[in-house]
């Protein structure tokens, strides 16, 4: 196996910027070998004129789409949030503040898992209320989806308009 191809494989596989040390450790090559391979990969990829490039960013290297192509094909990538989770996020935003127990009545048992996930993504806030949790959207929620709203009321309104605007 060619060393260059091994480092190429590592970059393809990781899909994120990596330091030389991390690559060397991951594939079992020396630092010098990885450095040499990286610089030849940068050169090779820039000379082919294909859609993919290997670039140096500070101390790290990454394999990525050339900017001009990225825009054109972005729609083919998977959405960052799966549809099921997205549905729950929308219900919380519209009904907020909403009790987790009430959410469970709407979406069933998966409510618990979804609340946990959305909280980990910092999209919602939870606080104890009675025997349940009260759920509200966080400040990052509108930002994350690109909704022009600065507070929860505006966010609610955004969803409300979607209901009224929808065909009957």
């Amino acid at each position: 196996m060619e060393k260059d191809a091994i480092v190429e494989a590592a970059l393809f596989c990781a899909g994120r910027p990596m330091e030389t040390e991390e690559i060397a450790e991951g594939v079992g090559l020396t630092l010098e070998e990885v450095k040499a391979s990286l610089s030849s990969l940068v050169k090779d990829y820039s000379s082919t004129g294909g859609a993919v490039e290997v670039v140096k960013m500070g101390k790290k290297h990454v394999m990525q789409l050339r900017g001009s192509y990225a825009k054109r094909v972005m729609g083919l990538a998977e959405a960052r949030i799966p549809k099921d989770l997205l549905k729950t996020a929308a219900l919380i935003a519209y009904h907020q503040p909403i009790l987790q127990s009430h959410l469970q009545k709407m979406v069933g048992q998966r409510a618990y898992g979804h609340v946990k996930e959305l909280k980990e993504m910092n999209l919602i806030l939870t606080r104890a209320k009675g025997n349940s949790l009260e759920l509200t959207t966080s400040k990052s929620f509108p930002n994350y989806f690109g909704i022009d709203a600065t507070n929860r009321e505006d966010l609610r309104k955004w969803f409300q308009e979607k209901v009224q605007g929808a065909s009957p």
Partner: protein
Amino acid sequence: MKENYEAVLNHLLFHKSLISEEDDSTRIDRYLHMVEEIDKGMHIVVDDPFEKSIAAMFELVIEHQFDPWDVDLREFTKMYLKQMKGGGYVNFVVAGKLVLMAWSILKLQSEEVLVWAEPPREREEYYFGDWDLDPTVYQEPEDLDFTHAVLNRSDPPVMKPVRTQNTRPVTLIELADAFDEARKEADLQMKIDELRSKSRKQVPHDFVKKVHMENLTEDISVTWKRLGKFDGQAVPLHNLYNHDIWDRVTVFVSVLFLAMMQKVRIWQRKFPHGEIMVKTLTESEDDIVRFSEEEIQNDLTQEKLAVV
């Protein structure tokens, strides 16, 4: 509490009656025998029907008939403690044996967890080595060879290919669509909840007693026979019962049991008053993928029905 024990027995008897003649029923005979032995107190001396039902359940898990993770030991413990506190009399010999059985199940459960928790091994030649391959399972000698080869090589013959994992932000249109869908689904879910709680109120108080007095196994067999006349076609539920209200209830409950046993598939054409359809699942493997669009669209309603 005797019903619990009988439920296990009935469950087995019913499965036995469903097995076709070509199928080997020795296995189920063995379990039946085992349950009868428990009844006679040959495994452990158990007189109390409640303890007998727990022992039967445990024994079935230990004998690998059920997935150990399907048994919630915590629930059993709670039930048992409640029973002990209520009853006043404790047979420590039986209690001890039940604890031993519960421990065996816990061990089976933890063995599975351990397998998952183990760090990947460099070489796995003997990973499956403790399992004797039973040659009677295989039809052709090369099938046995294949299994042997797969289990004894260090790497599996197949791997998940490495591909890029790019994601993109959710668009506003997607968010709005998701919201629209979620609202409709939530409405349906809450309507079903409401109907369910209304129906519960309408059920007479002695209904449960009456149902228990019926012979469930026989009911299911009768319904199964009626379904057999339709040759695997989808049938509206009302074609399966006569005008008698109890016959209606009996057939409906039996069909739910058959669905739970994956013997039939049920779905409703339109919620909440549409036709309920029943279809026997046949032997052909295409059966699962051949379901019509209508059936797939009604999956949601069907799931709701299955939990009524």
